[in-house]
């Protein structure tokens, strides 16, 4: 789309139409049209392009400095750390110098308590990078395994905040994780960008990754039962999964049991915990996204139409990437070759010198 083809905005058009002078109106409309001859009024004759590739690289380096290895620690919000320091009760204040000492002590105590409460309420965040997995035990004893490129956050004192009781144990998830929930008096809730999964002593897999324009959350049940609802509260009924292997999903704000809801299908959803890999009738584009996250490499397709092809894959135990790429290539008549940052795939027979089948 030619950027310069933005039409006269409605508010401006209204203003011009209210003008009494027809000639003035048509003149200004003509000026607007003439302005379309320029693509970019800010460019100099020796304009250097913004080079968004390099810029993206630079931005990525700044927001996620390459992590070291192994399990990811809780990554605190940098602003949180700053504010916590500012609240140090030892910071001298000239205003307090003239106050009696007992007031100072009381003030310090109040600051400590406030800072303590405030820190207590700040969520813990655990993040995995591409190619990493980790496991976390929550304050209530529940265990969570995180797949790659996932963020889990939860309040520090999960449902045990000292002053204010809580009627649920809520965590926030972006990415994919397997939950083993400790039985408890309050419901355990997983919140994703578009869904709410509620459980009471159960184990299940939640995959909150969006492939297209709509937000998606997929849940597979291992034991017990869960209730799944959409956060965009419509009158739609939440659904309940209570069979091992049952699968449900929330796409946008629509809740339903998944189309491949057969007993045992759901078990595939958490083979990642054994370093396996599974995808059930998904587009190659989405599968490659998953492989990139899982193995921490870059996969490129020379032909973007390949990305639309659909496949089902199931590797129940540890499998290396080349095996998976090999199988995909055989099934879809592709060839793959190694690049400096990963692999490249192309339709078989396309001009690509040292390709492997």
């Amino acid at each position, binding site marked *: 789309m030619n950027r310069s083809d933005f039409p006269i905005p409605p508010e401006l058009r209204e203003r011009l139409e209210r003008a009494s002078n027809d000639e003035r109106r048509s003149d200004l409309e003509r000026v607007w049209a003439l302005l379309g001859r320029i693509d970019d*009024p800010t460019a*100099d004759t020796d304009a250097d392009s913004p*080079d*968004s590739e390099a810029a993206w690289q630079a931005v990525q380096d700044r927001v996620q400095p390459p992590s070291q290895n192994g399990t990811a620690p809780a990554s605190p919000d940098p602003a949180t750390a700053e504010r916590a320091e500012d609240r140090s009760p030892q910071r001298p204040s000239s205003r307090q110098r003239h106050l009696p000492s007992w007031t100072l002590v009381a003030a310090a105590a109040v600051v400590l308590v406030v800072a303590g409460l405030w820190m207590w309420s700040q969520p813990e965040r655990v993040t995995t990078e591409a190619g990493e997995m980790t496991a976390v035990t929550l304050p209530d004893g529940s265990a969570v395994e995180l797949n790659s490129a996932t963020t889990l956050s939860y309040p520090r004192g999960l449902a045990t905040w000292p002053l204010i009781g809580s009627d649920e144990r809520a965590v926030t998830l972006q990415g994919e994780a397997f939950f083993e929930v400790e039985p408890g008096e309050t419901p355990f809730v997983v919140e994703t960008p578009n869904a709410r999964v509620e459980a009471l002593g159960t184990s299940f897999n939640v995959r909150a990754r*969006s492939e297209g324009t709509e937000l998606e959350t997929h849940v597979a049940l291992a034991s017990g039962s869960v209730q799944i609802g959409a956060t965009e509260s419509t009158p739609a009924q939440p659904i309940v999964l209570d069979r091992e292997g049952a699968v449900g999903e929330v796409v946008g704000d629509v809740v339903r049991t998944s189309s491949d809801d057969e007993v045992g299908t759901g078990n595939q959803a958490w083979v990642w915990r054994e370093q396996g890999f599974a995808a059930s009738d998904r587009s190659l584009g989405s599968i490659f996204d998953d492989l990139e996250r899982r193995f921490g490499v870059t996969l490129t397709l020379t032909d973007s139409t390949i990305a639309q092809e659909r496949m089902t894959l199931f590797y129940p135990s540890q499998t290396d990437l080349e095996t998976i790429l090999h199988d995909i290539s055989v099934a879809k008549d592709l060839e793959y070759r190694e690049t400096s940052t990963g692999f490249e795939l192309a339709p078989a027979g396309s001009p690509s010198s040292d390709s492997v089948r």
Partner: protein
Amino acid sequence: MPSDEQLRTWCKRLRASDPQAFEELFQAFYTPIFRYARGITNRAAPARDIAQDVFVKLWEIRYSLDPDRSVKALLYRMARNQAYNHQRDRTTHREKQESVQEDAPASPSPLHGPDVEVASGQLESRLKRWIDELPERQREALQLSRYEGLSHDEIAEVMEISPNTVNNHLVRALETLRDRIRDYEPDLLDP
């Protein structure tokens, strides 16, 4: 141009720390933000830094994003603040006459008379120069509306003025440009 729905979805995903949403937002807006910043700084190098800073900042504040508000307007507003701060902090200024007087009426350039050849290249470079010579706020409103496609409400949010004032800026800008064009080659104004 991403739809409001798309912006909303990105916002929600970004709030949940989804790096893919962050990348998609970057791909959609980095270049427009860079262009917009360059319009204010007049040089590409600081505009690049500013555009990068804006996205880094966006990631840092992702937890506080509100999907009901336009993340697009937020990006432009952050870029605007940074760009104007940059201009203010510069000790040497490249001469740009009306940049200090924000609403000074632009004085038309002395009549040179129409050139014999009205080559399109000539018109374009003149248009660019005339736009550059507009009072800063008018130039900005024009760029955001005509070239970045922002709505009046979005521009109002970015520039922190009312949509009516946005209209005023646009009308005055168009009138100034019309006067310039008329002095240069009146036939161009014929429909």
